[in-house]
């Protein structure tokens, strides 16, 4: 069962307890956590939403009147006519998220199949090797690429030697470095749910397709792909959503041309001190993630995708 988005299982409810009794017990058990999350998450997010409709004072303070100016500016219709800066940031975030997800799919598929075809005693170590980077601090894995992609590093020299990109162009900072950092950080997010699907594959379907004369491509497309689709979709979502809202990776590996939603938010809450506008960007980022999640929940309902946790 898909635990993360499924409704709470009804069979476990203690039906013999009266409605008042249920309420009382809920208040004791669920109550404290619920109150905590309402006070420290729901209200702050609501405040963020309200402030996104307010204005910035001359000294960076938050003030009335209510306005749609922040959202207009985000869409490019600022006070000074059309400005593509923020629409570009929005599109770039989506594109980088989608691009990362795509590269992770292309690289994650062979890795998941490789692990599933290993002899049983090597599977756990091979999988653990994927999990270790997943549990290692993202900041460390990201700044390491600054060393690896430095102009004088052997990797940079090698890449230039086989003439990818213009010789002499630095590999870092820039879009290339951000993409490398993102794929390296998010590959385990895709491989883990995908592997769960690949491991359960019914290979007899592939054999049947082969017996019927299908080539390797068609076997994969028609006999294997439909079976691993739930894991593939779940993995793609796990990469795409957090990658779109990433802040650390573009901050450490990118430059002015790779500003993403996360960096724009930080800028407004930091140097620019325009909290209402920063709130509007944050709110849009949140909306993007929630809509994506909702679409996934609707599509995967009852299809039995892998557990998200």
């Amino acid at each position, binding site marked *: 069962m898909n635990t993360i988005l499924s409704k709470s299982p009804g069979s476990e409810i203690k039906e013999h307890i009266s409605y008042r009794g249920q*309420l009382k017990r809920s208040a004791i058990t*669920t109550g404290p*956590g619920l109150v905590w999350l309402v006070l420290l998450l729901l209200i702050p997010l609501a405040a963020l939403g309200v402030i996104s409709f307010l204005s910035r004072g001359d000294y960076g303070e938050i003030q009335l009147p209510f306005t749609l100016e922040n959202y207009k500016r985000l869409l490019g219709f600022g006070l000074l006519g059309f400005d593509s800066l923020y629409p570009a940031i929005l599109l770039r975030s989506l594109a980088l998220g989608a691009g990362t997800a795509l590269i992770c799919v292309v690289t994650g598929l062979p890795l998941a199949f490789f692990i599933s075809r290993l002899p049983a005693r090597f599977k756990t170590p091979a999988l653990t090797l994927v999990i270790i980077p997943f549990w290692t601090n993202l900041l460390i894995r990201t700044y390491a690429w600054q060393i690896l992609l430095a102009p004088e590093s052997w990797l940079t020299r090698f890449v230039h030697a086989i003439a990818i990109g213009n010789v002499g162009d630095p590999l870092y900072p820039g879009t290339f470095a951000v993409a490398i950092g993102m794929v390296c950080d998010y590959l385990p997010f895709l491989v883990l749910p995908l592997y769960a699907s690949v491991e359960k594959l019914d290979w007899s379907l592939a054999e049947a397709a082969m017996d019927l004369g299908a080539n390797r491509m068609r076997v994969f497309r028609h006999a294997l792909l439909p079976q691993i689709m739930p894991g593939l979709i779940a993995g793609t979502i796990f990469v795409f959503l*957090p990658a779109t809202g990433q802040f650390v990776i573009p901050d450490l590996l990118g430059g002015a041309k790779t500003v993403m939603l996360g960096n724009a938010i930080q800028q407004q*809450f930091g140097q620019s001190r325009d909290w209402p506008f920063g709130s509007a960007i*944050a709110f849009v980022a949140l909306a993007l993630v929630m809509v994506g999640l909702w679409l996934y929940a609707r599509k995967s309902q009852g299809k039995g995708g892998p557990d998200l*946790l």
Partner: protein
Amino acid sequence: MSLNFIAALLYLFLYAPLAVVIVYSFNAARFGAGWSGFTTKWYGALWENSLALSATKNTLLLAVSSTAIATVLGTMLGYGMNRFRFPGKALFGWFLYVPVFIPDIVMAVAMLLFYSLLRKWCSLFELGLTTMILAHVTFQIPFVAIVVRSRLVGLDPALEEAAGDLGANEWQTFRHVTLPLILPGIVAGGMLAFTLSLDDFVVSFFTSGPGATTLPILIYSSVKRGITPDINALSTLIVLASIAGTVVVTLLQRTKKV
């Protein structure tokens, strides 16, 4: 290209960053990417680095206290959500997943904003370790609750019924039957919460104040100024701790199945 070759390349790709940090932590050169001999002096320097020591202390203090609170609240929440009804439960069940998927930075600025609004009335919300603990507990609770709840789902109801038939009241049943059965789930949820707290940079960065630097914040600000070998030494220790932790958990899971 064979599958094995592609897989080898991908493992190399995943481990190159970890390897380079470890190798460079033994590099005698203070600046640049050139290699100028093997040394362990950066590890010795860490012990005298009061910033690194206090950041380690803050990180552990933050992780331990937030995990303790979140494990208790999250366990109660997971149990209550599994067993009892209340109006608006389906909606709240959905809301529980918001902290799981929300971009870190959105949660971070929402907290920053909220604390700054509260500070107008109450000085308790001055940015520091307290505000960081409050923030960490907030993103930890749902993870613990979800893990505990999934453990409860797999439980055989007959065990609790038997306890009831034998005269145990509700609390006794919970204390002596349910709690020991879901303990592995609580431990797993707590470890997840602990790791999330140790790893967190973004939420900590926005909700920390002067004197409340954690290891991720220290690494970030050092990297912003330019990577130095002692930061590589510190990162190497963190990487080795993560590897050890993951391996231990994997081994524990394996022995449990047998």
